[in-house]
């Protein structure tokens, strides 16, 4: 048993790749979603709700692609996860601020 645990070397290259695959697939998807929320709010005053949301969705695949490439370019899997969390949080906060701002201005 202890042998088995010792074999689970979390710093090995395989684990790093596996962790990055998860980060790119799921973290990337969440980032694509949060970026579309942000764009949906950012373009709201100029283009109206429907078009703003639509454009956010149209661009989300490109955001997803960039996120996945970024995850596989940084030096460690941990950095990738941390970065994704930071990006996601900032986008959510920015979206929330935009919502507040537009409520005030309306």
């Amino acid at each position, binding site marked *: 048993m202890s042998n088995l645990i010792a074999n689970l070397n979390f710093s090995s290259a395989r684990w790093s790749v596996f962790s990055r695959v998860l980060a790119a697939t799921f973290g990337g998807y969440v980032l694509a*979603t949060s970026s579309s929320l942000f764009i949906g709010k950012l373009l709201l005053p100029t283009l109206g709700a429907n078009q703003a*949301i*639509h454009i956010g*969705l149209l661009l989300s*695949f490109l955001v997803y692609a960039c996120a996945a*490439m970024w995850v596989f370019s940084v030096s460690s899997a941990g950095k990738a996860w941390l970065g994704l969390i930071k990006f996601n949080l900032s986008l959510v906060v920015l979206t929330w601020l935009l919502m507040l701002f537009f409520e005030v201005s309306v």
Partner: protein
Amino acid sequence: MKENFRQSMKWFHTWVGLIVGWVLFFMFLTGTLGYFYQEITRWMEPERPFIEHNISNERLLDIAQNYLSEHAQGVDEWDIMLPNARDQNLRVGWRKPPAAGAKRGKYQKTVLDISTGDKVDSRATGGGRLLYRMHYRLHYLPTKISYWLVGFCSMLMLLAVITGVVIHKKIFTDFFTFRAKKGLVGWLDIHNVLSVIALPFHFMITYSGLLFFLFTYMVLSSNLQLSDDEYSEMRKEIFPRTSHLESANEPKDMLKISHLYQQAKNTWQADELSYVEVFAANDINAQAQFVRHETDITYNPHDAVMVNAVTGEVIIQAPKEYTVSGMIHNGFFSLHEGQFAGPIARWIYFITGLIGTAMIASGLILWTTKRRPKQMKKLNGPDFGYRLVEQLNIGTIVGLPIAIAMYFYANRLLPIELSNRVNWEANVMFISWAILLLYPAFRPATKAWREQLQLAALVYMALPLVNILTTDKHIINSVLQQDWLLVAFDLSLFIIGACFAFSAYKYKTLTLDKKQLTKAAKARATKTKGVVVDKSLLPLQAMHRENS
């Protein structure tokens, strides 16, 4: 991941491309055939009559209206598809009223024989439609699962395209350097040329492919931002439709459609009808919409003319209003499907699609070529992973085209009265593919490549012959009747076969060359010094020199 960004992306490109390369090959090849799906369907229904030359649109409309008035009473919609360059028969279709609980009624479609005015009883076949639908429906899988799987593969394809550009230092200078050498450098150059030559197409086709299921894939985002009502409102805005009247359930004789057609002719100043839709036929609300071949990638409101089918007056319709983002979305759909393309543009689409398919194939082959020297030196033979990739390559790159030919054979050879015939055509295709995927496991790779290439040559070149033996719509009769669509189809099959024969021949001479060279080099090396030189690492010219 690696020392620098470019190195990381190189690694990423390799694995992203490999992991779903075979599914992508399948999607690209069946999708490319979709650019000719109508032509394929026509070929697969040989009971249909030959083309009839010089028949006026008015006469065709009369024949269709007579048939529909008799056989399609009390239905919501009639469609009359006129013969065109892609399908030279007159076809009609109608939608039955929805059954209780269903949203839309069943659609029925049939081909009319112009000389008798009656329907043609064709064999049951999936035709080109089933074949091209496979590229996003993956045939056997449940709808939802195949959409997500296709989305996953497309996303990896998008990544492969973008990283492919990123890792290319000199994308344009490299394009003009083609080193026609054998082995690694040759395959790398082929992969590069195929990728760069149609780069905008590769990007467009992949990105637009994702857009087809935009709201499915980005379900989390759209659910967070839109209620169900807002969502359907938004869809209406992105994909606007022209409206038409519903049936008032008050029967009233319509004017002749051929007579109404004059209105469309006046508007267009030309006789270029593509199809007619009749709503609420033989009702007081009857309307006929005349549509010509699309003249714009996005939208031209003048391509359709709506006429009141009872009074014969033109109904001025408000043109469809597109939003900017909707225009982009629909523009990508249009580019993906190429419905607007005339014969030349259609061939360009087809060839570009084949370039994409070949790009994927060359990338997969490159993966094995790069690893071959090292793998061949292993004591216990190549790794399982390497052998698996090689096997999948042979079984897919040559195996799938053979399987598609088997789909055509099944169409000609399966008994006409077989129940479930449509399914069996597809089953024959996938069973053949499975066999060809397994076959390379039992043969040395070079032999398997050669034998499957030879088999591909044989099946494609023999198809026109089988056509002569099994139907009367074969190449000799087609030439006599000047039905050029059918002539082109049989000729294309033969040319594809000839290309495979040429590859098989080339492959044979190449591998034989190599074998003789290595044998000679080995003999020399052991004789003179007793030191074994690793032949596979020697460039070929050096080996030539050594040999002579």
